[in-house]
């Protein structure tokens, strides 16, 4: 500890797991927005990534509550948030936003879009897989054009509702921080908006990278029209995100309220690497410049692909750094504005780097399983034989 801190402030309360949580939900929201580009806004260039984006969102949404459970002092009591939610608490209300988004939006949309595949797989596979698909059909094998048309219409409505739901999912996380008047690093009405746009940036970058990686692994050519369109939307979203973050920064510097000197010092010392190097230079300015070059100049496919990969990776690192700077940064300075502490993070500890890394890998494992069960590649479906169709 340097300077003076209130005695109870020296130890950080929210660890790297709480950094991970907005990162994961942000990826969910961003992936979903990319999917909705095609479904609602008819940007049909990105259709090849529609199902992949949904599955990516689901994989990350499943993992999202896990860092929270590891963090809670009494995870066995976590059901209380659903049983006796305190209506003035953003955290409590978020439990319902999460549940709504998972059940009513994401799972429903995936089910409706894949229903035809599910019914066919329930007739063409065997063993445990068959049971899995049969359960998912809910006992209905109707994949007539009429029923599929109904699915399409209902799915469109769900996606439409899903967009503000995705905004709520991640905007709420921003509000959890932004509404804490005790903490001037967090307390700003811009927080939910900044969180949301950085979420969109990270989610789009993630789907872009997953698409490129899976195409390489499957040894299929990348649809460059799709990839270029994703990169374009990534670029536009990034501009908005960057503008918002700069607005927050300039406003703070200009107004220079009582917290400013302390926060400014913290940013230049304790957060120098994570904020100035990783978040601003590597995570925002670099991808912005690289993406701008791909938009402004005519570059070859090979060069564009490399720039997209590099920009995507920098973006993900940058957005993770942003979450780190908000969560950890908000706890490094004293609310007396007279001192600082350090964040000591272990590796093999319940809230250490070890579990954090595992929780970052887990969604990809889940995504792999989801891709195997619900292939998102729009390949032709097997034809059920007449014998099994009679089931």
């Amino acid at each position: 500890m340097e300077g003076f801190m209130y005695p109870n402030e020296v130890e950080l309360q929210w660890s790297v797991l709480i950094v991970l949580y907005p990162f994961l939900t942000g990826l969910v929201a961003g992936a979903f927005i990319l999917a909705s580009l095609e479904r609602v806004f008819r940007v049909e260039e990105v259709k090849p990534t529609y199902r992949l984006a949904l599955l990516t969102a689901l994989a990350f949404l499943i993992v999202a509550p896990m860092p929270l459970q590891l963090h809670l002092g009494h995870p066995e009591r976590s059901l209380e948030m659903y049983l006796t939610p305190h209506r003035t608490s953003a955290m409590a209300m978020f439990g319902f936003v999460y549940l709504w988004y998972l059940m009513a939006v994401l799972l429903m949309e995936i089910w409706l879009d894949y229903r035809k595949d599910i019914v066919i797989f329930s007739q063409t596979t065997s063993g445990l897989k068959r049971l899995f698909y049969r359960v998912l059909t809910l006992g209905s094998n109707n994949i007539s054009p009429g029923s599929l048309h109904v699915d399409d219409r209902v799915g469109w409505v769900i996606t439409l509702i899903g967009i503000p739901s995705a905004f709520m999912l991640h905007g709420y996380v921003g509000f959890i921080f932004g509404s804490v008047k005790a903490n001037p690093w967090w307390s700003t009405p811009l927080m939910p908006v900044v969180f949301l746009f950085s979420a969109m940036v990270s989610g789009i970058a993630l789907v872009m990278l997953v698409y490129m990686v899976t195409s390489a692994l499957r040894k299929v050519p990348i649809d460059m029209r799709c990839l270029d369109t994703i990169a374009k939307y990534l670029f536009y979203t990034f501009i908005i995100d960057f503008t918002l973050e700069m607005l927050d920064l300039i406003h703070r510097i200009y107004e220079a309220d009582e917290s400013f000197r302390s926060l400014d010092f913290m940013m230049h010392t304790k957060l120098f690497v994570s904020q100035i190097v990783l978040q601003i230079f590597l995570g925002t300015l670099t991808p912005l410049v690289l993406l701008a070059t791909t938009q402004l100049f005519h570059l070859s496919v090979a060069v564009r692909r490399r720039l997209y990969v590099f920009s995507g990776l920098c973006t993900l690192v940058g957005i993770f750094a942003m979450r780190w700077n908000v969560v950890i940064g908000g706890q490094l300075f004293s609310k007396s504005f007279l001192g600082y502490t350090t964040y000591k993070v272990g590796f093999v500890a319940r809230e250490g780097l070890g579990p954090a890394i595992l929780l970052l890998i887990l969604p990809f494992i889940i995504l792999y399983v989801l891709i195997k069960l619900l292939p998102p590649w729009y390949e032709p479906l097997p034809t059920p034989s007449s014998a099994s169709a009679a089931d």
Partner: protein
Amino acid sequence: MVPLKDIAHLLRMAAVFLVGLILFLFLRSAFIPKSFGRYGHFRGDAIAEITARPIAYAGHQTCEGCHPEEADTKSKGVHAYVNCESCHGPLAKHADDPASVTPKLPDVATLCFRCHSENIAKPQGFPQVNANEHSGGQLCNTCHQPHSPAITQGAKK
């Protein structure tokens, strides 16, 4: 008009949601503590649990009940408003069953100096001394009786 068979799967899904809702309502009635909401959005029994905490400091009135002489001496001196347990520590257990707990005499060297060692942040009029200058390292109770600390004969400041 959409034929029923084409929305049957949606109705089945709606049924799944309904089952989920019923399960949720059941969980609520089974697991929400009965006293929750009695006084506000919290478990009413919590107040009783908190007030049931055992008491460690008896309070000076209790001490004075059994130790009137010391109380009287103290009330006439400058430590009149310094409560017994402030120096003697928490003694509710002793008040509860005097024989079972014998209070340990406080360590003079540490105790007196916490209040009376010189410190620029202490209020100006408050009696504070530098240990070595004041008594050459002798213990405070060599000259001062804690219950009535004023030195009446040959007092030096």
